[in-house]
């Protein structure tokens, strides 16, 4: 899926979150909990039962009050990827589904290299499958195997159902990356808001084909929906194409505006964009990943 040089580049990247999450195990991310780390965080008043070794005796000597040192806890982060397995993803000159799988694989590798956990949910009409959280760089193979086993053959993408199922089975919130085209008949907003309500941090990665943005259809055609099989006879001329382009651009603008209003990460990418550019350039500019060189 990737060459060694590209994977080397991925190892120097890290996922960026805007909030702190409560992790399960030791990691490289700051936890919301104060803990037994080595980096000083702040003081608090001593209460009965506190470990006397944590009392800051220097402060007691100067001020005469008992204060306990607090240290920053480093936790791991669970990043959950949602992969749209509907048939609409299996279209385009450069297949959107393959493109999405490569994006998830690359981001998962970045996450695993950062000692974080990766969870993948493939959703379609019903939840197609789920890769339970894995940790460690060597687990990338299981992620890849899971992704290779997924296929875009669902009749409809039920994002809301998949999110509901995910929330019901997950206690700790985390970073949730939705990789889809978001062609939801009922809209994607409801599902995303449910993630926000669950204190997750959604990130939207919209993938579309260039032909969806600028279709080259003309004349009397019978359009067939690849998911539902609905048919519709249309006459496409220049004005219809202009209206379509306007409507599609409005959809993308709405997605972008919604993300800004709700403080979500959002990347809109065409599958025609080279994959390397998306990972190394576009996602970094969107501040979804950052370089770790120089900081560690």
């Amino acid at each position, binding site marked *: 899926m990737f060459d060694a040089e590209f994977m080397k580049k991925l190892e120097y990247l890290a996922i960026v979150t805007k909030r702190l999450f409560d992790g399960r195990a030791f990691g490289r991310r700051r936890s919301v909990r104060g803990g037994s780390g080595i980096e000083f965080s702040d003081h608090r008043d001593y209460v009965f039962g506190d470990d006397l070794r944590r009392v800051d005796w220097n402060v007691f000597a100067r001020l005469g009050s008992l204060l306990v040192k607090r240290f920053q806890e480093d936790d791991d982060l669970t990043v959950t990827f949602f992969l749209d397995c509907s048939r*609409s993803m299996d279209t385009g000159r450069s297949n959107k589904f393959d493109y999405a799988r490569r994006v998830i694989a690359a981001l998962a590798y970045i996450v695993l290299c950062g000692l974080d956990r990766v969870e993948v949910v493939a959703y379609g009409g019903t939840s197609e499958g789920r890769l339970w959280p894995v940790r460690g760089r060597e687990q990338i193979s299981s992620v890849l195997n899971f992704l290779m086993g997924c296929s875009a053959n669902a009749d409809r993408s039920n994002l809301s159902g998949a999110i509901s199922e995910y929330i019901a089975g997950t206690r700790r919130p985390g970073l949730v990356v939705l990789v889809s085209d978001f*062609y939801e008949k009922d809209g994607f907003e409801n599902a995303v808001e449910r993630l926000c309500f669950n204190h997750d941090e959604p990130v939207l990665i919209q993938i579309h084909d260039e032909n969806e943005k600028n279709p080259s259809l*003309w004349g009397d*055609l*019978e*359009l*067939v929906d690849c998911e539902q099989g609905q048919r519709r006879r*249309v*006459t496409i001329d220049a004005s219809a194409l202009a209206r379509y382009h306007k*409507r599609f651009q409005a959809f993308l603008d709405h997605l972008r505006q919604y993300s800004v209003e709700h403080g979500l990460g959002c990347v809109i990418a065409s599958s025609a964009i080279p994959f390397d550019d998306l990972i190394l350039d576009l996602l970094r500019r969107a501040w979804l990943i950052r370089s770790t060189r120089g900081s560690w």
Partner: protein
Amino acid sequence: MNAMQILNPVAWFLILLVVPLLAIFLIKAGYRRQTVSTMLFWDDVCGTTRLALWGTRLRGVFSFVVAAVFVALMITAILNPVSTRNLASESRQVQTTSETENPITMTRCEVRRHVLDPTEYELMIEAVNLGSRQVTTSLTIERDGMPIHCSRWELVPNKPQMKFIRGVSETDAVLRAELKHNLYASDGGTKVNVAETLLPACGRVKVLCRNVSDMFLLKALRAMPLVSVEMVALLPKRLPADTLVVIQGELPLQLPEGNVLIIEPKGRCELFSAGDVIAAPVVGNVVDTALTRFISLVDTHLPGATKIIPSESGPAPETLISTKDGHPLLLQWKREVGRVILFAAQPGQGEFVFRPSFPLLIANIVNVCRSETDNADAVRFASSQVERLAEVRERKFRSGSEASQPLWFYFGWFALVVSIVEYLFYHRRIIE
């Protein structure tokens, strides 16, 4: 060769029409169908009003009808060309060649009308069997599409054989001969040759007789079909093309314009003057022309013949029959309108040999007048009338369906243009 003649033309036409139409329909249906990832945006873009949907459907139906018309016209043009130029070239090829694997062929197909009875015609078919054994064939004759004759014909090898079929018809017609062999095959035989020839029309001739007292001449005229004889005292100055004037005896000073036959002249006119009786007028020379066809008068004594002195100021005559002494007996003046034929002998006083020849001479004269009416040089042999085959066919075609040919022609072009425009603007698909 019309391809539709091979089998039932209607069935062929329907098959050739249905197959491409079905292909066009399937190709268009598959060509129009486009799979899109979602209908979310198209639902908003394209109106869902009933009027728009009906408009799209009607255009589809119109497109199909136009395609059907175009295909039908193309098939018709391929199978049955209606171009007049094509017909003319086809008519020249009266005798067709046989198939390569077939040693039987028709080599001649000619028709002629009877000299004395022009309503009767005779069709001559010549065929040859180049194979090594005798072949039983079937000869079918059609007149304007109606079968009039069908017979079995045994063709011996390497010997041209002729067959004569007689019929009666006043009007012009296209005679079509079809030769078949393998008669016991399941498909009714293998077609070897089809030949077509023209039967020319046979018009009526009106004969105006002035001072005609010779009963032999009158009987000869009245015995001919399609000839009406009328006795007149005064002659019109101009004669219609289908009218022949017969003058016996005294000549008027001015001959009428048109076809004039003068028998046993007396006196003078602007073309000649009649002289004394020729002593011992024995026919010495007969020029072979349309007027003297089938006439053999050499060494025949024609008593009572008079000397003819052509006028020096008038046009020079053409001597067709003359005596051994060089006196003209049958002369012809061709004028701008019609011709003047002079027979200087007495019909009723000729030798016995002259008796059967005189009706032939009169029939030849009448036929020449008739052919001038039909505006052709010869009436009897269709081989010299091949040019007219196209004219007759064209006339028949114009009276039928060809009257609307320009409409179909323009409609065909209209269908072609509409198909191209429709393809460019509505069925063009850019993406793969």
